[in-house]
């Protein structure tokens, strides 16, 4: 009888170990989980921040016309790196500030297409944003249906490759305040 009890006791104790481990693990989990639930009020708190944020869209025209890089562009070491270095001239066609909000903000590009940006969400750390961008062709097919980017203020991303007047368009989109 003593041996039979041992048979039952040992598996019971061993199987109880994971439960204990789960209990300890559960004790650490709640703080992380508390960040995920989205409170509608929290969205309201972010509204002021959304108003302040914007995307600065620089439209550059890359060509091989031998004119060099427009000084109005400012410091952009990316333009001297491949594949941008395959063009020797960059001209600043426009610099537009599009306020970031949950609603679409649009601007018309030199080639007639329309760039649309939208704020998707402010990350919990309130430092990073998720924004979307798309490029549409009025009365034509969508050129860039969707682009979602996570960035913080000061960071930029580039959308390039659209043909325009013997060169290409380079859109430098930067999150600014």
């Amino acid at each position, binding site marked *: 009888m003593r041996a039979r009890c041992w048979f039952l006791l040992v598996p019971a104790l061993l199987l109880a170990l994971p439960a204990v481990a789960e209990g300890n693990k559960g004790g650490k989990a709640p703080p992380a989980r508390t960040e995920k639930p989205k409170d509608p009020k929290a969205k309201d708190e972010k509204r002021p921040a959304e108003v302040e944020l914007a995307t600065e869209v620089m439209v550059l025209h890359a060509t091989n016309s031998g004119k060099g890089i427009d000084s109005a562009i400012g410091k952009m070491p990316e333009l001297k*790196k491949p594949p941008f270095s395959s063009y020797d001239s960059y001209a600043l066609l426009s610099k537009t500030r599009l306020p970031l909000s949950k609603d679409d903000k649009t601007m018309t590009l030199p080639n007639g297409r329309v760039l649309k940006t939208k704020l998707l969400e402010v990350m919990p750390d309130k430092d990073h944003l998720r924004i979307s961008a798309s490029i549409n062709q009025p009365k034509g097919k969508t050129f860039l249906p969707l682009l979602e980017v996570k960035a913080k203020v000061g960071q930029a991303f580039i959308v390039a490759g659209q043909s325009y007047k013997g060169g290409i368009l380079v859109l430098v989109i930067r999150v600014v305040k």
Partner: protein
Amino acid sequence: MSRHRDLMRAYDGELTPEEAAELERSLSDEDRRVLAGLEQVGDVVRACEPEAVARFAGVADQVMAALGESDVADSSGPEVVVDRGPARPVRKRATSMPVVVAGLSLAIAAAVALWVTTPKAPAPSAPAPLGASFTSPTVPVSPSAPTESLLEPPDEDADLAATIEAVDFGNQPGSIFMVPAGDESTPVVWLEDEPAGARMEPL
């Protein structure tokens, strides 16, 4: 060989009187030495029997106790143990069962512990795309898929550069890559546009 068998049968008393008489008449000196050897072997076996019985008698008691067969517990006499067959298998069974049970329990416990402690991957939330990672200078993305998704970047990289989380190139080919800009990098979405003259200009 048959001669030795006949001698063993004669020693064990298994021969008929006629066969025994015939064998007795034909015994050679060697046959007599074999018979004498059998006698010695028998003496040795008989001398060792009590010791062997005593050696395994305790095992039988343990087995009976483990099985809870109290009614069989009285059969701890030497004859009972010998009649139940060799003691070694019984002893092996008595000792291996706890080991097997404990081993299986350990394996199950380890598997459950691994399953519990392994962080669960978050369920994908369609159609939300996955994050994009740019740890390498160039990360080409096939334009065939409507929505391209890459891995989540490390935290340190996320602070150094914007992150492309999803991109839909539509019908034209495209690629995603990083261009170094000093200490930081800038993600680039490069689209292969058709020549300006080949597409329809807006009205």
